[in-house]
């Protein structure tokens, strides 16, 4: 009996809710229809929703800050959701934002291939979508992305300059296979090495996407090819771990990273890491909102546009200068403030 009681209570509650919403939904539904037909909006009415890959990585934290700061600058309201590295959550977040009736969506997708239906839904609801970094699928308005391939090439050129001897060999610490976009960095690196006549002697996947994972991978690369002179790691944290392994072995090998996270800046400053390819997550985030502003407020049209974001090689020579530029443009220290004093988000 109790079971039937329980089921019926639950069913009645659900039914009551559905009815409530059905009535409420009819009213609000017509309201939005009007909203989307309007060509342009006032800045004060705009809400930007941002769906971030994860807030566990410095890179994405900086990207998020760019999005948030841009919203503040343009006078937009702002709402952020965290995919927590889960593709299903990513789609869910996109839907949540549509339901929140935000005016525009910025997404940094964990699985760019798996967002097409969700993007379609947003566009059907009249909400423009801009991807900030990583990649895209579906009818996305714009994608702002650093040139991953080019970044890899820069790393190869840097190592080539250090070792003019063409018989020199290098190692490559690549990312897990499911992160297809970031593997372009490795592709760029390999292509450039090929072009310049160098050999990538050992390519190993970092099993554990974390600094200590890079440490392990460097150890493996050194076992496989002990005569390499340098290595490129396609993600910053792993590069620092790898460089620390070289240091612990008192090795001479040069490690180049990719991202420009604070720990990389610190490591370059300390002479542990040779160089890194700087992405500008803050700028990417900022630009994404700028693009949305042009669509929403200025009434410009973007469909499936790719906007490249500049990547830059950071070496000990230009380290201080780059750090200053970052400080000037974003108000953030490239070295990362001590954790105790940083403010939340």
């Amino acid at each position, binding site marked *: 009996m109790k079971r039937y009681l329980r089921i019926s209570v639950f069913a009645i509650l659900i039914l009551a809710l559905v009815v409530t919403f059905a009535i409420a939904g009819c009213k609000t539904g017509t309201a939005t229809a009007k909203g989307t037909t309007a060509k342009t909006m006032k800045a004060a009415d705009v809400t930007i929703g941002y769906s971030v890959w994860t807030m566990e990585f*410095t890179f994405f*934290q900086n990207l998020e800050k760019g999005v948030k700061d841009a919203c503040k600058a343009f006078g937009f309201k702002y709402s952020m959701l965290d995919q927590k590295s889960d593709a299903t959550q990513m789609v869910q977040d996109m839907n949540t934002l549509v339901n929140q009736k935000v005016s525009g969506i910025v997404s940094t997708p964990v699985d760019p291939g798996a967002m097409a239906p969700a993007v379609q839904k947003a566009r059907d609801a009249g909400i423009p979508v801009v991807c900030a970094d990583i990649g895209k699928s579906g009818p996305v308005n714009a994608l702002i992305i650093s040139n991953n391939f080019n970044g890899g090439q820069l790393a190869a050129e840097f190592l080539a300059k250090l070792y003019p001897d063409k018989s020199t060999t290098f190692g490559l610490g690549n990312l897990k296979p499911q992160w297809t976009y970031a593997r372009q960095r490795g592709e760029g690196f390999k292509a450039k090495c090929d072009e310049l006549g160098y050999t990538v002697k050992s390519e190993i996947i970092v099993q554990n996407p974390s600094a200590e994972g890079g440490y392990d991978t460097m150890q493996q690369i050194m076992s496989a090819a002990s005569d390499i002179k340098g290595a490129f790691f396609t993600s910053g944290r792993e590069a620092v771990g790898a460089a620390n392994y070289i240091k612990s072995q008192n090795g001479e090998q040069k490690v180049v990273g990719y991202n420009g996270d604070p720990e990389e800046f*610190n490591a370059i400053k300390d002479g542990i890491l040779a160089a890194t390819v700087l992405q500008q997550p803050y700028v990417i985030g900022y630009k994404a909102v700028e693009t949305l502003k042009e669509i929403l407020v200025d009434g410009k049209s973007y469909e499936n546009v790719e906007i490249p974001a500049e990547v830059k090689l950071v070496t000990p020579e230009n380290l201080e200068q780059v750090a200053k530029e970052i400080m000037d443009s974003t108000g953030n220290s490239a070295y990362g403030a001590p954790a105790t004093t940083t403010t939340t988000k």
Partner: protein
Amino acid sequence: MIKFLKLYEKIGIFILIVAASVFLAIVSPNFRNLNTILSIIMQGSYGAIIAFGMTFAITSGGFDLSVEAIMGFTSVIIAMLIPSLGFAGSIIIAILASCFVGFLNGVLITKVGISPLITTLSMQVILRGASLIITNGRQVVISQKSFMSIGASKVFNLIPTPIIYMVVLFAIFYLILNQTSFGRHVAASGSNEQAAKMSGLNVNLIKTVVYILVAFSASIVGVIRTSQTLIGIPTMAPGFTLNVLTIAILGGTSLAGGKGNLTGTLFAGIFISMIYYGLNLLNVQIFYQMLAVGITLLFALFIDGLRMKYLETAKVKGIRV
């Protein structure tokens, strides 16, 4: 035959290692290099050390899914405290804090009676969140370079320190499990909890101490890994827990409890490292590495099942085993 099967229980995994070594040594000259061998053992040590603790937990009839979060937690605490306390002080506090987490696990499991699965799974999520909150989601760079000597130096300019830690901890855990009354009480609690209680053992206390030991072993690895990279990493070792479980089970520790095989755990840790490391060196794609782990696991247990069956029949037939 029976003697061999009995022996197999103890060293079965060792046979796998020998087979794998011979194979690798034949296909790649890299493996005839002492440094490579030491590197493989070193990378096996991280999983093995935590699996020592996990072996205790499984022996007592439970398991612990919060170990990877405990590693990150340790790492973060060290990084935050090192500027003010120096590395000795911060390591001690970090390990104590991790042990306290283990204590909480133990209390929730024994006193509140929540299953180990839910307790430690929740603890994993909570602790990850807490570590991220402490550092604001940042990785914390450690500026004290001498700290690196703990996990990244070599003894006699040859043997990496993690291997030393692994051997020392193996000795300690082995002594605790097999030589002390406490260790035998752990086995008793997992083997027949009712009998253990009837014999006057404080099973709740024993289990709580076991979860403290797991947390302790995880925090040791947290310290080693933090020292190697000189970064406090709140999200350290994602997905490592399943690896540790695999090592303990492959090592021959029975999930039914009561039988902990630390020697097996030690070798299984090295074996798993051999698969990943060795196949990496042979440029075998990561997918085939996973396949190898899965098949080895099933194969080892299949053989173990055959062994048990044989011993059972032998017993029924009256052969003294």
